[in-house]
């Protein structure tokens, strides 16, 4: 195998449970974003745009959608004779067969994959952020500082710093201290979960820490390497970077795309985001349609009115329906005369006529108030909603629902219908 200077390992195995029913059947990196994309398209496109042509994608939780989406990597030009994209799920071994127990453990279990390319550097990426970043610039930084590890960091508001791993670094970026989710952060420079390691250093650390339960980069590997006086540097990144880990931040990040000049601009020519799109037909607007402040994917048919929304490909919106402040993913069909207000509707959902979303007042979610906040109604993929029902705020629906599931035709605020196990 030809030696590669740097290969990327993309961690895409997590469920992302804070996205609630959106990730009931699909891993978070495969969740749709921005009309036609999926979250993983952003790090994958960054890789190819940065000239990295060898990417291992570590999958574990519900990886079918990821597998079909990535395939052999054609949309990202990662179908290579030498390198390209490889999906790496956990596998059985003669002893010690194990799931991936932590981020670093997942890499450890794929030592063989990395070894086969014998790289100088390994880039570790997460599959759950929206950003554009040239990893080659980060590698130049890494080389110029003669670093052993470089952590991409960005300044965050102080009050949020305790959610992240934070680093204390000097002017040159040399890391003095590293704190994982500290209660009293001593810096607001947060780790973005993007690392460049010298492969020899990382390899040694992974092998030494192989028996560490739940071996994690932030918790174990970085402190281990830092304590051994290796050169750890912080690479400050000041571009757009958005965590889409919660329903609220996911909704917000989508809505930011519809600003007139969005901070995160998909329409730039020089850093394209690629995705696997099988729907390429133009979208159609009927005579009575109305649309403002939206982005809409290919092949959708809009007969109603759509405002302030992000609509995926192949969506059908019936006559008289008004959609506001919502996210509707690919293949979903909404009947006539519905009112959709602040809803996140996942893929291939069937919604009848005269359905109303967002009725009533704020109510705390009875399912999980930490997940279902933000006044959003969240509908899982492949669900169906019968005609003539009303759905309140902070609600969740997963499965084929019938009129009898809605007492008096209403799913009150904070309530939920989860029909698990049914397909």
């Amino acid at each position, binding site marked *: 195998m030809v030696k590669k200077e740097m290969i990327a390992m993309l961690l895409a195995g997590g469920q992302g449970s804070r996205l609630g029913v959106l990730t009931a059947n699909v891993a978070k990196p495969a969740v749709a974003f*921005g*009309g*036609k994309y999926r979250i993983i398209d952003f790090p994958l496109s960054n890789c190819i745009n940065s000239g990295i042509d060898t990417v291992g994608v570590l999958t574990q939780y519900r990886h079918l959608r990821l597998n079909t989406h990535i395939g052999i990597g*054609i*949309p990202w030009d990662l179908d290579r004779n030498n390198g390209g994209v490889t999906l790496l799920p956990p596998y059985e071994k003669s002893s010690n067969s194990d799931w991936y127990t932590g981020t670093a453990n997942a890499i450890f279990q794929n030592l063989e994959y990395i070894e086969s390319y014998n790289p100088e550097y390994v880039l570790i990426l997460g599959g759950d952020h929206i950003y554009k970043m040239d990893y080659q610039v980060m590698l130049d930084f890494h080389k110029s500082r003669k670093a052993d590890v470089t952590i991409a960091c960005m300044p965050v508001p102080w009050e949020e710093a305790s959610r992240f791993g934070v680093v204390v670094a000097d002017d040159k970026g040399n890391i003095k201290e590293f704190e994982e989710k500290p209660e009293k952060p001593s810096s607001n420079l947060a780790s973005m979960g993007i690392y460049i390691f010298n492969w020899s250093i990382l390899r040694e650390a992974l092998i030494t820490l192989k028996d560490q339960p739940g071996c994690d980069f932030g918790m174990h590997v970085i402190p281990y390497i830092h304590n051994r006086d290796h050169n750890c540097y912080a690479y400050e990144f000041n571009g757009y970077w958005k965590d889409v880990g919660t329903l609220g931040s996911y909704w917000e990040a989508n809505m930011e795309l*519809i600003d*007139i000049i969005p901070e995160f601009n*998909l*329409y730039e*020519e020089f850093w*394209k*985001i*690629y*995705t696997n*799109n099988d729907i*390429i*037909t*133009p*979208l*159609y*607007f*009927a*005579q*009575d*349609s*109305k*649309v*403002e*402040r*939206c*982005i*809409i*994917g*290919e*092949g959708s048919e809009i007969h109603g009115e759509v405002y302030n929304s992000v*609509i995926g*490909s192949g969506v059908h919106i019936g006559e008289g329906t008004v959609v506001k402040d919502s996210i509707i993913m690919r293949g979903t069909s909404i009947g006539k005369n519905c009112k959709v207000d602040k809803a996140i509707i996942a893929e291939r959902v069937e919604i009848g006529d005269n359905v109303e979303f967002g009725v009533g007042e704020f109510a705390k979610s009875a399912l999980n108030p930490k997940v279902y906040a933000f006044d959003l109604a969240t509908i899982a993929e492949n669900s169906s909603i019968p005609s003539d029902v009303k759905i309140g705020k902070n609600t969740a629906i997963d499965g084929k629902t019938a009129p009898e599931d809605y007492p008096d035709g209403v799913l009150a605020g904070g309530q939920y219908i989860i029909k698990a196990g049914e397909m």
Partner: protein
Amino acid sequence: MVLAGGTNNRMGELSRKRAVAAMPMAGSYRCIDFALSNMSNSHIQKVAVLTQYNARSLNEHLNSSKWWDFGRKQGGLFVLTPTITADNSSWYLGTADSIYQNLDFLRHCHEPYVIITSGDCVYKLDYNKVLEYHIDKKADITVVCKEMPEDTPGLSRFGIVKMDDEGRIVNFEEKPLVAQTNIISAGVYVIRRRLLMELIQKAHDEGRNDFVQDILIRYKDVKKIFGYKLEGYWSNIAMIDDYYKTNMDFLKSEVRDYFFRQYPGIYSRVEDLPPAKFNPGSDIRNSLISSGCILNGYVENTILFKKVYVGNNCVIKNSIILNDVYIGDNTVIENCIVESRDTIRANSSYIGEAGSVRIVDERNDRYIL
């Protein structure tokens, strides 16, 4: 074999930039996508596209065979352009000559049958059904025919076919003065490969170069030539009006349903453009909008191809705006076809007549990225 080398002066200014087969169609496609997708959907994996006239756009479009799922170990997508050889230094002199110049390609194939189609028709057809019919009728050549409505104007610009009850073609006239029937040749032929090579060689030896005139019509009483009736939508792009009308047909839900939703689909080159964006002030009615567009104005009965920018307070009606056009603020466009990559200055007005569309090709410099 897809014959995509031709031009047509009735396409007017639109043909300056590209061959008819490369004309943008239905928002996100080009004409030739329909023939190529039909090939792919009929599981034909060895496809040759014969090009000659201004093939730059076409070659760009055919830059990878993966869009139509051709790049297989068996077969592939072949672009055959005229080349200078020891025996020949001329361009393709006609459809038969274009096949003659690639006779070696045919000779080295092992497939028993050849489908010949043109690259400038919009239709869906399973060629296997035509082949089954061809074998069933023990035909020498099968011509796909389309029954046009009785009152279609301009029938005489097609090849007019007369069939007997069996389906055999008893009369075939190319562009007659008066059309005797309303059945026309759709420009799709099935023929055994060895017979095709033999007829093409013979035509060449006699100095004849046209497939329809010198093979179909000349041999109609000698060979068994059958007609296969194509059901469903078919349109040929031969002049500006055809082009305008065929595009506008996609505003009808049954045509969209037939091509866009019903299996099998039509494929095209993927350009990785972002979703269309609708800013405040946009108002879209009965229109098709492709990916990469950014809209700020009023659009009605219009087809916007990819990457069109529509400025504030624009009014666009009954028009076709081709790929990558920038339309400045306060512009009015009615009954026009705006040529691709054009830049329309702010505060301008382009009004064509209903029934006779105006072609807009300004070639202004673009200052805005």
